[in-house]
């Protein structure tokens, strides 16, 4: 097994999952629509007052992004588990963690990046100061992949259970809390004109940690689930 074939396996999985996402694209819009609806309901339900919305905005946008990701997680391994494709991946000559990383990257490109692209629009809707919008996008760019990576561990553990939805949320949400705290705090600070480097460093460190360890944990969890 050479390095080039490992790379080609990674990109084949990535391309495969992106193709699958494109061919079932109506499913892809669900989390995105959820994200937009939740945020756009706040001005109607709470208050249209820009001051109130401004103070709520970082938290609301991040909570909505987190829940939208949670909604989309189950699809990461579900159909592959049902039709036996996951078995074939576990029986591949390549390390399962590399295949998992390809799948997680595809998941983030399909759910994380659309959230990232839409966020400035929703930030304007929530009357966020213009100069804090870059901070929001940076936190989503750093935090989004963490949500997908950590979420993959939870999905891998629960994919064999028929009704693993509630369990998945219970497993994953505590691990999402640090990301939520640092990210929402960074955006609030940016809106108040305070430095945000500290929070971004923490998010970066969490991303490095998740990127290196989560695929290994996910691969182990998949093996347990398929037993």
């Amino acid at each position, binding site marked *: 097994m050479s390095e080039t074939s490992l790379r080609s396996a990674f990109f084949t999985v990535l391309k*495969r999952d992106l*193709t*699958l996402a494109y*061919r079932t694209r109506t499913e892809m819009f669900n989390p995105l629509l959820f994200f937009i609806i939740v945020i756009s309901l706040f001005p109607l339900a709470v208050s249209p007052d820009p001051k109130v919305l401004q103070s709520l905005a970082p938290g609301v946008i991040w909570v909505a992004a987190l829940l939208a990701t949670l909604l989309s997680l189950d699809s990461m391994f579900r159909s592959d588990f049902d039709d*036996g494709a996951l078995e*074939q991946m576990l*029986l*591949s*000559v390549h390390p399962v963690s590399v295949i998992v990383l390809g799948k997680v990257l595809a998941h983030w490109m399909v759910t994380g990046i659309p959230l990232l692209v839409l966020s400035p629009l929703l930030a304007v809707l929530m009357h966020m100061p213009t100069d804090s919008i870059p901070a929001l996008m940076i936190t989503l760019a750093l935090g989004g992949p963490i949500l997908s990576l950590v979420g993959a561990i939870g999905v891998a553990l629960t994919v064999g259970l028929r009704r693993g939805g509630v369990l998945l949320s219970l497993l994953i949400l505590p691990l999402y809390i640090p990301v939520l705290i640092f990210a929402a705090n960074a955006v609030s600070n940016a809106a108040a004109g305070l430095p945000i480097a500290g929070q971004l460093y923490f998010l970066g460190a969490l991303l490095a940690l998740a990127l290196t360890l989560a695929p290994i944990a996910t691969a182990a969890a998949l093996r347990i689930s398929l*037993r």
Partner: protein
Amino acid sequence: MSLAQNLPDSSSDTPAKLEVKGLTCIRDDRVLFRGLDFSLEPGQALQIEGPNGSGKTTMLRTLCGLTLPSDGEILWNGEAIEDVRPEYMAAMDFIGHAHGIKKELTPLENLQVALAMADTNPNQSLEGVLEKVGLKGFEDVPAITLSAGQCRRVALGRLLLSKSILWILDEPFTALDVQGQAQIESMLVNHVENGGMVILTSHHPLALKDGMLKTINLRP
């Protein structure tokens, strides 16, 4: 249909041997099988028989390392399969009851993915393989429009691409028509006669010479 070109890479130079010692599987306090011993060498096929629910599928999943046995060991060339995982995965191909064909992808795309997972260079074109399994003209239609039997043919096409010596097949004849069954059978017989190894669960009799076919009957 000629399928003799699918010669396993390693059959002649490196000896390959699968040994199973004292294999036991217990599911939910029910003993599926206990103390199973057998070995398989190139040029041999093993047919596992038994009534529904007797543990045939569990046994195949155990043999390919997906399920852990309750007791006993599975040795590939004398070493436990967990210890020589990359070599064993390269030498083995498994087609389960759920064959892993993605409904949204075309047969061609399905084979491309299988090829990348298996890390082999095909000795024939993917289109050629699809033609051999009787899917000429269906290369670029989503698999969801294909019938169950046609999907299984795509999965079996994976075997034609692979250079694995050991094929582990769970009910390979399911959903195939008479002609398809004959094709698959000749494919299996060919593989064994060329020094390959086949383990399958099926009630379909295989036309192999004496000494090439072993049978295990799992009685509940």
